[in-house]
């Protein structure tokens, strides 16, 4: 159907344009040249940075997918941040401990990370179905608790490295080389970035092709109708939350196991925090749909990486201005989807009316 295609493309384009205009305004406001700014931001990145964009995008994608699983059934898992932090810590401790040889160690760590993320996500789920606690509140609190918990464990059981603590670094045999698309010095696409592709496909497949996915979407679209159709909403809440947490558990693993990434251990400085929130934004941006999330992840990763070039190009804008751009994109895209959605609904209704008229329906109520 034509309108579907149009609405799929139109809204993001409108949002991007608005974001460009508003960001330019901010750049002008702080006294820099928007032309220079966009020249840097939109230049083609170096080979190394192309790989960085891909690696960052894969982590953002995993985070966005984790958030989207919850969003699909109106569950606001704001706790992706805490879930992947806990899971990353657990995986790093286990992988660093080298209890298993090589590949087995990696597989076991991945499973463990998913279990840890799922377990951390199960807490708000259980609180919600048994006590009616809003998952928004409990996940935000659990994010703070996750920071505390991992920090506590690290400072009490971590390995000392100068004045900081970290988990035991991974042995060489449990690190993955990645895919070197360019010269060696440019780094590599991390092997476990492929998790994003796998998870993306599974997410699409489960949501759109399975009974479970149907139940999940139905619950998100109309909870009371889902109940009437026989869905056990409580069970769905717990399952969806744990799935979301399990995917969240994967977020940082590409980095942890990558030979070419610095920091093959968990510490307060090498662990990349904040991806959980980026994921929420990207899930909104991509309308909880894998292709949209993938595009959104690439966009956000691209903007983030490009912003590091600003200081070298002599553009006198803090690279934090990218946060403004990203925020504006999310805001405008929600508005744009809403607007386009209304156009579409109206177009749909016109189509139906046309179909009715074509049938020459004369069944108006006679007085």
């Amino acid at each position, binding site marked *: *159907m034509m309108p579907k295609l149009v609405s799929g493309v139109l809204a993001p384009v409108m949002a991007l344009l608005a974001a460009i205009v508003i960001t330019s305004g901010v750049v002008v406001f702080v006294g820099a040249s928007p032309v220079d700014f966009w020249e840097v931001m939109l230049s083609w990145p170096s080979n190394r940075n192309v790989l960085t964009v891909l690696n960052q995008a894969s982590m953002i994608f995993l985070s966005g997918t984790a958030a989207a699983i919850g969003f699909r059934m109106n569950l606001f898992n704001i706790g992706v941040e805490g879930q992947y932090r806990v899971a990353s810590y657990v995986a790093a401790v286990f992988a660093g401990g080298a209890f298993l040889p090589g590949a087995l160690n990696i597989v076991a760590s991945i499973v463990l990370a998913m279990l840890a993320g799922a377990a951390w996500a199960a807490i708000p789920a259980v609180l919600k179905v048994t006590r009616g606690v809003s998952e928004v509140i409990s996940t935000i609190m659990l994010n703070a608790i996750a920071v505390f918990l991992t920090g506590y464990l690290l400072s009490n059981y971590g390995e000392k490295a100068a004045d900081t603590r970290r988990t035991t670094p991974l042995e060489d045999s449990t690190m993955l080389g990645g895919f070197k698309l360019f010269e060696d010095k440019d780094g590599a696409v991390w092997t476990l970035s492929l998790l994003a592709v796998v998870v993306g496909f599974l997410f699409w497949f489960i949501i*759109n*092709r*399975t*009974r*479970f*996915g*149907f*139940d999940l*979407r*139905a619950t998100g*679209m*109309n909870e*009371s*109708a*889902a*109940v*009437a*159709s*026989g*869905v*056990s909403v409580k069970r769905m809440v717990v399952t969806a939350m744990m799935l979301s947490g399990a995917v969240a558990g994967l977020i940082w693993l590409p980095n942890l196991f990558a030979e070419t990434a610095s920091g093959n251990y968990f510490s307060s400085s090498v662990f990349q925090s904040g991806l959980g929130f980026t994921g929420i934004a990207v899930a909104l941006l991509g309308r909880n749909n894998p292709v949209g999330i993938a595009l959104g992840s690439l966009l956000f990763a691209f903007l983030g990486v490009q912003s590091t070039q600003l200081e070298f190009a002599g553009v006198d804008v803090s690279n934090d201005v990218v946060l403004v751009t990203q925020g504006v994109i999310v805001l405008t895209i929600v508005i744009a989807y809403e607007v386009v959605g209304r156009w579409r*609904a109206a177009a*749909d*209704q016109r*189509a*139906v*009316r*046309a*179909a*009715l008229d074509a*049938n020459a*329906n004369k*069944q*108006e*109520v*006679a*007085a």
Partner: protein
Amino acid sequence: MATAPQGSTADGGNSVSVQGITKRFPGVVANHDVDITIRGGTVHALIGENGAGKSTLMKILYGVQKPDEGTITVAGQQVSFSSPTDAIKVGIGMVFQHFMLADNLTVLENVVLGAEKLHGIGDKARAEIVRISDAYGFDLDPDDLVERLGVGQRQRVEILKVLFRGAKIIILDEPTAVLVPQEVDALFANLRELRASGHTILFISHKLDEVLAIADDITVMRRGTTVGEADPKTATKLELAELMVGSELPSPETEESTVTDVVLLELSDVSLLDDRGRHLLRDIDLTIHKGEVLGIAGVEGNGQAELVETIMAMRKGTGTVRLAGNDIAKANTRERRELGIGFVPEDRHRHGLLLDAPLWENRVLGHQTREPNITGPLINRRDARKDTQRIIDAYDVRTPSMDTHARALSGGNQQKLIVGREMSGDPVLLIAAHPTRGVDVGAQAAIWDHIKRARREGLAVLLISADLDELIGLSDRIEVILRGRLVGEFDPRTVTPQDLGSAMTGGQDAETKDETTSTSNGEGAAS
């Protein structure tokens, strides 16, 4: 049409007259040829079942929606509203059923909110509030926080808000629905004060006792139009009930009975309590046989919805439920559906559809564990779509495609899709709650035909309806529900509207053990 605006009557200043109002929504006519004349300085009751078109009319009067045809005349002047602001300008105010008050503000603040220009927000406004409150016995302190007020007081704040804005004509939407009896008495006292001072009140309700107690005139609506007027001094509850649900009973079905001896659904001692431990359903015993349609009659809100949801296991009641001889008490909603219970819910938007999903996905809803929609754990898109096309064809669902979102369809077509869906997969029992509410006549006839055909094929049907035409036309047996109990059983071929009406309103003493003293015997007053 175009009746000339009625000359003003006794107190013509605040009279309202609507003539020939018609309002269409895609596929449905919500109001047609509505004529009401409200005399100034009176309490005028507008009664009718849910879905009779009262709320649409109300919205038209308050400027929320524009009528497609017809005229509104206020105090002899023809008016046309494009927003509630216009309605307020000519002195029409409305009190909604759900209060719109800010709990953490005071009475004064709530009242002046949005009307700061009238009397300011200071002493003048306070004085005005006190004046109104004293004049009509509202007993409100402008500085009380609304969160400390009871329901009755909050309602008075709402009325005060309307009066503060200068309304002379006040529309009250089911004002007593939220009140306990003493509060109802207090409200009525306030209304009489208002009437005495020349205000006109349009009182919307379906509670007949109250209407008879307060109204000067009564207008009855059914199926989108005004069907009659009554004088509360002489009318009885029975007559009103008849008017509301349709008094001209259809000739009994000539179709042969298809009722068999096989009991399909059997409820015994089924009860359901609400959070506060009150009985929503009490000791329900009923049976439905294969090939039988059991109709449940009753005034809305007497436990019909709860009965349906208990049978569907959407609520957890006590007692035994047997389906085809098997105890299904432990079965959850999905398992019960899988055993062959089809469900046409009362509110199709809330319980029956995914409005933002395509039709074929709506066909899967409720059947997502059964062929042809699935293969193993996967959704079988191809077969589900094929079967959706079958339903669209067989049930005459008018849609450009099965990929159209359900929201875009008219109510009647949505309902036909639901009925088609629930009839698929060879159900043994169909629970149909108000299956033709809010659908056009064509769709209604089609749905009736489908139910009749299924019954011939041995389907057992539990039919809940507020429409006596439908109940009598389709049912093999009618049970009347009142305050969560089944209070009488009737044969649709012999039942009179008086019998039904009096059972529904509690006028019949048979089997009703409580409150017999306060209720007058309806049969004596009838005819």
